C-alpha cells in the first residue's frame, strides 16, 4: 500500500483545464475531508461542471493533481476505473435509463461485479432485492418501481438518479444541481435526503439555488473563473465583497 499523500478524501491542487485557450479551470485547489458535505456555488461558467468532469475522468486536466483517498491519482484513470474506486456522479440534467423500469435502473447501479461475463450469468439474490427495496423507500419511489423511468416526472427522475448513486454505494458522491426545476416542497425534501445520505457518504453538491444551499447548512466553496473565490459558511461567503461583486456584476 502506498503511503497516503493527504488525509483528505479528495484533493485538488493547481488544476488547470483550457478549451481553445479559454481557461475553464485556472489553478483550482481545494480539499474535501472524509464524511464532509460541501456545497460548491458560483455563477455560470465558473467551472463547476468542468471540475466534476475532471474528478470523474471525463476531462483530463492540462496541469495539476487530483488525488482521491490519499493514494489514487485520478488524472491517470478513465471514467470506469474512477467509478470503481468509489466516486459516483449525478448529472446536471437527470440522466436515467428511460427504457428500463425504476427497479432495473437501481439494479444496474447496485454495487456488484461489473464485468461482462459476470453480468451474462448473473442472478438476483434476495439480499440485493432487499437493498433495492430499501433504496426505493428512501427515495420515495416504491409504488412506482415497475414504471418505466422515462415516464417519471422531472423531480422523480432526479430522485431516481440520487437513488442510483446510493445503490452504487460510493465513498464520494458528486451531485450536480440536484434541485434544478424542482418545486419548493421537493427542494426541501431533497435537502433532507442529501443530509440523510451524508451520514454514511461524503457528498459534494454543486448548486445555484442559494436557499437550498442555506438549507443544507454546510461549508461552501464559491468558484469564479475557474478558481476558488471564497470558502466558509454560507453567511461568511455571501458577505464576502468579491462574491457579491461577482454575483451581482457590480
Amino acid at each position: 500500500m502506498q503511503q497516503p499523500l493527504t488525509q483528505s478524501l479528495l484533493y485538488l491542487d493547481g488544476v488547470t483545464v483550457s478549451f481553445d485557450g479559454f481557461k475553464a479551470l485556472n489553478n483550482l485547489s481545494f480539499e474535501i475531508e472524509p464524511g464532509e458535505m460541501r456545497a460548491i456555488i458560483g455563477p455560470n461558467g465558473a467551472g463547476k461542471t468542468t471540475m466534476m468532469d475532471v474528478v470523474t475522468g471525463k476531462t483530463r486536466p492540462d496541469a495539476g493533481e487530483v488525488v482521491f483517498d490519499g493514494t489514487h491519482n485520478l488524472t491517470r484513470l478513465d471514467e470506469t476505473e474512477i467509478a470503481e474506486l468509489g466516486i459516483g456522479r449525478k448529472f446536471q440534467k437527470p440522466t436515467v435509463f428511460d427504457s428500463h423500469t425504476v427497479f432495473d435502473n437501481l439494479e444496474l447501479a447496485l454495487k456488484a461485479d461489473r464485468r461482462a461475463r459476470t453480468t451474462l450469468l448473473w442472478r438476483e439474490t434476495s439480499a440485493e432485492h432487499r437493498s433495492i427495496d430499501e433504496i426505493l423507500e428512501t427515495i420515495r419511489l416504491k409504488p412506482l418501481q415497475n414504471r418505466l423511468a422515462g415516464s417519471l416526472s422531472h423531480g422523480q427522475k432526479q430522485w431516481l438518479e440520487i437513488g442510483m448513486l446510493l445503490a452504487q454505494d460510493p465513498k464520494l458522491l458528486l451531485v450536480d444541481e440536484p434541485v434544478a426545476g424542482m418545486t419548493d416542497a421537493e427542494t426541501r425534501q431533497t435537502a433532507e435526503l442529501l443530509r440523510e445520505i451524508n451520514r454514511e457518504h461524503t457528498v459534494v453538491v454543486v448548486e445555484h439555488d442559494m436557499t437550498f444551499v442555506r438549507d443544507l447548512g454546510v461549508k461552501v466553496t464559491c468558484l469564479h473563473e475557474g478558481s476558488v473565490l471564497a470558502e466558509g459558511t454560507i453567511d461568511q461567503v455571501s458577505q464576502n465583497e468579491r462574491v457579491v461583486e461577482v454575483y451581482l456584476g457590480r
Partner: protein
Amino acid sequence: MMPHILIRTLDRGTLIFLVIVAAAAIVVPILNLAVPSSSALHVPTYLVALFGKYLCYAILALSIDLIWGYCGILSLGHGAFFALGGYAMGMYLMRQIGTRGVYADPILPDFMVFLNWKELPVYWYGFQHFPYAALMVFLVPGALAFVFGWFAFRSRVTGVYLSIITQALTYALMLGFFRNNFGFGGNNGLTDFKDLLGFNVQAESTRNVLFATSCLALILGYLACRAIVTSKLGKVLIAIRDAEARTRFLGYRVESYKLFVFTVSACMAGIAGALYVPQVGIINPSEFAPGNSIEAVIWVAVGGRGTLTGAALGAVLVNYAKTYFTSGVLAPYWLFMLGALFIGVTLLLPRGVIGTLQHWTALRRNRASAAAEEGVREPLPAE
C-alpha cells in the same frame, strides 16, 4: 444456472415464434417430399430453397438487431461477416468438387488452374475437412469483428462514424475479393458446387435438410439472442444504447460490452452466410456490396428494432416482397419501392411492425397499472 435463464428467455412471444419456425422445419419438407406435385398442398422445391434463403437472411437480421436494437451500434457493414461465413463454406464446397471440376485437378479448384497456380495457397489448407470449415465459418467473422471492434470501441468511435467505417470495411473487403490474386475466385467467386458432406447439394432431399437446418439455426440464434438480451448484460446493453456516458460513470466498461455483443453478432452473421451459400449455389464479392448491408438494416427497421421477432419477420417479409416484385412487370421499380418502404416505415411506423404492436400492448398495460395506482378500476372495454 440453466433453469433461470430458460424461464426468463421463454416469454409468450418467443414461444409463438419458436413454434412457428419449428413447425415450418417439419411441415415444409413433408409438403415438398411426401405430397404429390399434383396436389394443391405441394410445395415446389424452388420455394423450399427460396424460403431457406429467407431464413438465412432472418438470422442475419437477428444479428443486426442484437447490436443495433439493443446496443445502439448501427453496423452498415454486417454483410461482410455474412459473406465471410459464406466464403468459408464455399471453400469447403470447392474442395469437395475434386476431380469433377472442368480441369479435373484433384486439389486445385478450377479458377486456380485457370490462373496457372501450381499449388494451393496456405489459407485454403484444411478446408476439405467439414469440421474445420464449420469452425472457420464463425471464427473468421468473429475474429475480424473482435479486432475491428477492439480498435473502434476503445477509441470510442460511435454513432454515424462507426456506421461509416463499418461501411468502409465491407467495401474494402469487396475490392479485395474482386482481385484474382486474393485467391477466392475473383469476381466469379466460388460456384459449381457438387457435394455437401457427401450429399448432392442440388438434390431435393439435401435442399429440404438445408431448409430444416436453417430453421434450427434460426431457432438457436434466436434463443441465444434472447438469453443475452434478457440477462443483466442485456440490461446493460440497453443502458449503453440509451445513455452511454451514464453507464460508464456507473462503472461499467462499455467497450467490453460492445465488443462482446459485436463479436457474437458477427459469428451469427457468419453462420447465416454459411447456410446461405449451399442453398443459392454461389458466393461472390457482390455479397460484400455496401448496399446489401444497408438492405439488411432496412429489414430490421421494417420489422421493428429491438424486438428480435420483428427483425426475423422483417427479413422474410421484405425479401418475399422483393422476390414478388422483381419477377414481374414492376421489376425496374423495386429499388424505388424499397426506398419508399424505408421512408414510409421511418415516418409512419418508427417502431416497425412488431415494435408498434408491442408498444400498443405496453401502453394498454401501463394505462391499466396507472389506473390501479390511483385505485380506480379500469372500466371493461365495450365489446
